[in-house]
């Protein structure tokens, strides 16, 4: 036990229980005689929580609005973060290849699935104040913990590669050289971290994530027929061309564009880092639903924007991210095409930041190293290094010329779908674990919805397996 402050404590104060300044405020659950070490991270988080308490104590519309502003963040970030480079390319490829008929309601449905899943992480994070990786290791042991970490790290790295491909491709439209684009993106990522403050970081990335809606004006420029869009949304149409190997790949890519393992780890860790408590769960839910609504609008807009390519029977097979923008130029003009390319860049940039952060959180939780965006670099060296090294390695790979972008991004999304069922089982068991959740365990309806999502994901994965191994067998399930 530490009795005195030592040279190894940055801005830290070790308070032996007997000498505590405010002993009554200390947690009775602590072991007798154990110390409380107040850290920089605690102080920053406490300041954020003080503002929340202040607003909560006031009545009226404005304080409620301000409270909402203080508490939102992780949900919107995770949803718009998942509208990343590969996702937007998947939506663009979907619109260009199949039009909107079947996929408008399908994509809206995938975001509903994302809401069901992410709501569980809100409750888990607020109830335990711990990250997802930490809980898996603690409750299920290192054997299963490492499996889940390997799934996360491999998936995150592959996805990060595609984010930098999107960044390169988006800026490529404006003639920016690949090396400059990628290094610039790494610089932006590093600058965002220099705030050393979760709140500031979150607001910066939230602001950047709003540019995901840049696809909306592009969609409007194509003058979509709203009656057709509305009918597609409400009635749903048969899958164009029937169930083929290609349509199964696109179906899975679109699911993987909304529901992926990194989202579980990121949102739960961000909620713990932000300091949300069980009193904030309602706001966390609104935050998640709002994020899903914004992300759905951006996703559908991307599909609508590229739908003219389908209507004019243009092949999307060889389009890469920036080439979608170039192909759209005859329909939306130079400014519309430029907005589309900027949107692809933004999607890659925001996701590169959130995904690398989710890896760093998970690493810190598992390696028992400090893991918070509130940490100064010196104290959170391992956390920041993991984040930066992972991003830099992915960025380096992207500079290899001749990478088939569309194919890779579709496959990355497919891998995300395949890795989801095991990740969801951990989440399902944790959120139903009365020992850590208490009264906040999932109600029956939430469990039914969660199991529905798992069944859909496993079914989609198996369909993909059949389409690859025995394409002819697709005929048995209504394919061609």
């Amino acid at each position, binding site marked *: 036990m530490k009795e005195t*402050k030592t*040279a*190894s*404590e*940055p*801005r*830290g*104060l*070790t*308070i032996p229980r007997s000498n505590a*300044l*405010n002993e009554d*405020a200390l*947690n009775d*659950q*602590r*072991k007798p005689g154990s*110390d*409380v*070490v*107040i*850290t*920089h991270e*605690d*102080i920053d*988080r*406490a*300041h954020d*929580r*003080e503002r929340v308490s202040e607003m909560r104590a006031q009545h009226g519309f404005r304080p409620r609005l301000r409270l909402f502003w203080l508490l939102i963040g992780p949900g919107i970030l995770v949803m718009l973060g998942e509208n990343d480079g590969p996702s937007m390319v998947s939506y663009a490829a979907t619109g260009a290849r199949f039009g909107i008929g079947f996929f408008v309601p399908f994509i809206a449905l995938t975001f509903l699935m994302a809401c069901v899943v992410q709501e569980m992480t809100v409750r888990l994070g607020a109830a*335990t*104040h*711990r990250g997802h990786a930490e809980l898996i290791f*603690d*409750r*299920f*042991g290192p054997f*299963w913990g490492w499996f889940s970490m390997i799934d996360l790290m491999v998936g995150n790295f592959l996805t990060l590669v595609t984010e930098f491909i999107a960044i390169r491709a988006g800026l490529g439209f404006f003639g920016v050289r690949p090396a400059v684009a990628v290094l610039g993106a790494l610089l932006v990522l590093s600058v965002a971290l220099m705030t050393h403050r979760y709140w500031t970081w979150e607001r910066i990335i939230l602001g950047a994530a709003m540019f995901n809606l840049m696809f909306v004006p592009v969609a409007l420029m194509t003058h979509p027929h709203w009656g057709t869009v509305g009918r597609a949304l409400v009635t749903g149409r048969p899958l164009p061309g029937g169930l083929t190997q290609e349509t199964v790949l696109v179906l899975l890519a679109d699911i993987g564009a909304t529901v992926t393992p990194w989202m579980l780890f990121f949102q739960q860790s961000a909620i713990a880092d932000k*300091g949300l*408590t069980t009193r904030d769960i309602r706001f966390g839910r609104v935050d998640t639903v709002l994020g899903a609504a914004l992300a759905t609008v951006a996703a559908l807009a991307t599909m609508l924007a590229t739908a003219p390519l389908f209507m004019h029977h243009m092949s999307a097979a060889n389009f890469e991210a920036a080439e979608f923008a170039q192909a759209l130029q005859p329909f939306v003009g130079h400014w519309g095409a430029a907005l589309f390319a900027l949107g692809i860049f933004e999607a890659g940039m925001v996701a590169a930041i959130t995904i690398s952060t989710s890896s760093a959180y998970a690493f810190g939780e598992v390696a*028992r190293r*400090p893991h918070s965006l509130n940490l100064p670099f*010196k*104290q959170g*060296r391992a956390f920041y290094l993991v984040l930066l090294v992972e991003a830099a390695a992915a960025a380096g790979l992207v500079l290899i010329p001749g990478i088939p972008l569309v*194919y890779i991004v579709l*496959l990355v999304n*497919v*891998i995300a779908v*395949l*890795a989801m*069922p*095991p990740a969801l*089982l951990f989440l399902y*068991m944790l959120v139903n*674990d009365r*020992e850590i959740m208490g009264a906040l365990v999932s109600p029956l309806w939430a469990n039914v919805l969660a199991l529905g999502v798992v069944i859909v994901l*496993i079914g989609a994965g198996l369909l993909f*397996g059949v389409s*690859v191994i025995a394409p002819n067998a697709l005929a048995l399930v209504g394919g061609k």
Partner: protein
Amino acid sequence: MVKEFNAAAGAEVSAEVSREEFTSVMTALEPDQIVSTKEHHHCPRRRLTRTEMLLFWALRIYLVFMVGVVVYQIWTSVR
């Protein structure tokens, strides 16, 4: 092991924590939100039932098999 994880470890003292900061932390944060407290109290490990273990293994095998399918698809596409 727990002692090794101290958010304050490995760096130098830059400033004292003031009484105000200490009070702020103690009143604004829930006890198990304080980093050092969290590190003293890890969630205990739970025993997995046979069904849970079976589910874990089944999904693990599913994932390994499906990754094989993806690798096979990439291989056939490259060829």
